[in-house]
């Protein structure tokens, strides 16, 4: 026990002192915590292994507790690459001049939000959100995270656009569940009657048989918009060598490990650019999330 303690003591003090130099060569990335943490850690450890093999540098994934923490870590250059949502990506690129969206999932070109409801609320699915006005008014409603595109920005936009009211005025009670998996669970359990979530999370959970379809159903699907993307800092070439950014992009586009892609879930990655996310920026400005 004592020996063990001493060994740990020495090891960690060495780590403490060499942290700065070790990290100089480590390529660190993060991701917005949009789903259960166990899933994220599993998924991104796989990505870290893959990237470190492809890029020949040490690659480390750090989990964070909020969307803003991911953006801040990127902005503060404590991470150089991040898997952002549409909105967090726009926020991050505004704060870090020279940073670039380099790749997105095939599905992210036309992403959707699903509005879901507990079946006990008795809301029938509809083609247009406006048809649901009477059924939805006064119900309890949960977004995902405050900084989420599919869980907050787009649903809030459509609620304001269709009903002409702020969500907290239209619904009886408005909450922020924290992430998409939790939104699903809370609506399934009836804690909230209605919620809005990332359609990929819904479909994956449905395929895996994790949804009680007697308790919760999709009531409306939003029109398509661009979402998740990999964003990289503009100064990585100076730190990791010429052409590093291009190599990261290449590695991400070439990723074809079925199991790894399945965990996102995406069918593959395709090139992306900052301009692809202009619609998200405009929407965020419109509802006052961005200045």
């Amino acid at each position, binding site marked *: 026990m004592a020996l063990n303690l001493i060994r740990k003591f020495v090891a960690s003090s060495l*780590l403490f002192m060499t942290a700065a130099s070790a990290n100089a060569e480590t390529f660190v990335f993060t991701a917005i915590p949009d789903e259960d943490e166990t899933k994220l850690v599993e998924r991104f450890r796989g990505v870290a292994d893959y990237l470190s093999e492809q890029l020949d540098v040490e690659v480390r994934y750090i989990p*964070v507790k909020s969307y803003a923490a991911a953006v801040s870590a990127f902005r503060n*250059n*404590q991470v150089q690459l991040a898997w952002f949502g549409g909105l967090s990506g726009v926020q991050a690129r505004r704060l870090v001049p020279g940073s670039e969206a380099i790749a997105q999932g095939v599905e992210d070109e036309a992403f959707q939000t699903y509005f879901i409801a507990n079946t006990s609320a008795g809301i029938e699915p509809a083609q247009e959100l406006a048809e649901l006005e009477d059924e939805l008014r006064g119900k309890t409603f949960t977004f995902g995270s*405050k900084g989420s595109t599919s869980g907050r920005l787009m649903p809030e936009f459509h609620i304001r656009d269709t009903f002409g009211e702020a969500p907290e005025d239209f619904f009886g*009670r408005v909450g922020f569940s924290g992430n998409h998996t939790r939104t699903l669970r809370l609506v399934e*359990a009836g804690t*909230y009657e209605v919620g809005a979530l990332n359609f990929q999370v819904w479909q994956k959970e449905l395929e895996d048989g994790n949804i009680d379809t007697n308790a919760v159903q999709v009531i409306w699907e939003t029109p398509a918009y661009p979402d998740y993307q990999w964003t990289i800092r503009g100064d990585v070439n100076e730190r990791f060598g010429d052409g590093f950014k291009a190599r990261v992009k290449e590695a991400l586009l070439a990723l074809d490990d079925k199991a790894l892609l399945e965990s996102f879930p995406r069918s593959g990655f395709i090139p992306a650019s900052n301009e692809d996310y202009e619609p998200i920026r405009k929407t965020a400005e419109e509802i006052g999330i961005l200045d």
Partner: protein
Amino acid sequence: MLSYPTVRASLIFFAVAIAGLLFADIAITASNPWRDLGNFFLGVVTPNFFSSEGLMTALLRTVAFAFVGVALGSFFGFLLALVYRLLPVRIFCAFIRAIHELFWALIFLQFFGFHPLTGVLAIAIPYSGIFAKVYSEILEEADPEPRRLLPPGTGMVAAFLYARIPDCWDQMRTYTAYRLECGLRSSAILGFVGLPTLGFYLESSFSQGLYSDAGAMLILFYVLIASIPLWVRPKLLPIYILAAPFFLGEGLPIVWGNVERFFTEDIIPAPLRGDEGLTGLLPWLNDLMINEALPGIWNTILLTQIALVATGILALLAFPLISNHFGGPVRRTSGHVFLVIARSTPEYILAYILLQLWGPSMLPAVVALALHNGGIIGHLIGRQTNNIRLRPDAPAGFNRYTWELVPRVYRSFLAFLFYRWEIIMRETAILGILGIYTLGFYVDSAIQNIRFDRAMVLILITALLNIGVDALGRYIRRKLALQTMPTC
């Protein structure tokens, strides 16, 4: 009875809380809260200690952050206590302790990021303010007699060390040990915003419904706190304090440019940063006040007043659990366990658990605040009743409770309650991060939208509110001539 000022004050606070209930959002919104609560308790009795590879490391980090933070806090708090009679120092200390550890952590996260310094400063800064106040109170109450007996010409330092410190030493040591326990709680909850302590894993397991994993973490935490007398020994303390900095983990390196940017850009109000200048500042502040600050202040005060009265009621109901005047040893032992668990669990964790189980409203927050603070006060006055000697023919049972004991401890009960008023408000504000619409909710929203200028104004308002309640609490304690004890 109404002629007693203490009774009148109690009734006024009670009436305010009842009126508050009419405006407060109190509800259980989960459709099956008792099943969930049952699942949770099932998890606690079937703990899984091998869930996460990081659990032991997290426990070690929790202890390390607490030691470093509290050690620094008590060192600087002591220095500040020496000059505490200066008004600027008092204002400075009131200000730094009015801001909750989690708010400090959220601020430092923006420029130090995931460096150990973030967690250390988040504990050390507010604790310095608290230590400064309490140490100075202890030093002030020291017996002046020994100093008068010193030969003329004795140096100030020598006089201080030989005539003042010995008299205060015991009290300062007891208080510092109590603060270490608080430090462990603070350190644990820092995990909720991403630092590598216990809260990090607790939040993950809980949000995924892994109650057995969460149960194991809670049990480890109780064992850690309950066993403090066993492993925190005066002789071992220097070793712990010297070793702790090496167990904070490596984190990520600090980029100093971020610090400058934070202070020169991020927290400058948006209109001043842009080209609108001073003319834009007023509408900006106006918007912030009306849409965020005022609803936040209203909800914070509402929840604080309800929770304060609930705390008082719970403390009065709970103290017989450990009082020698009632029940047998079996009931007292289980009473002890209940009160230890209630006061060892940070409000933040209790509120988090109850919110998950009952759904969002003010109810989980009220219950969490009442359980934690009521547990502390109930424990203190319960112990006090053990020193009361009743006549052999004193009534038993309910009459003993209402006519003999409650009147005897009521003044110190009120003193404790008003002392914790400010603490309850600090916690109420922070619980907003969990989704209750108090000031913390709006601070968190501003940070989530990367608007640190707004977040800073809101944190400032929270601090001023706390300072106001602290002053009011002191005024009432003085008016009612209630003794204050810093060991609460």
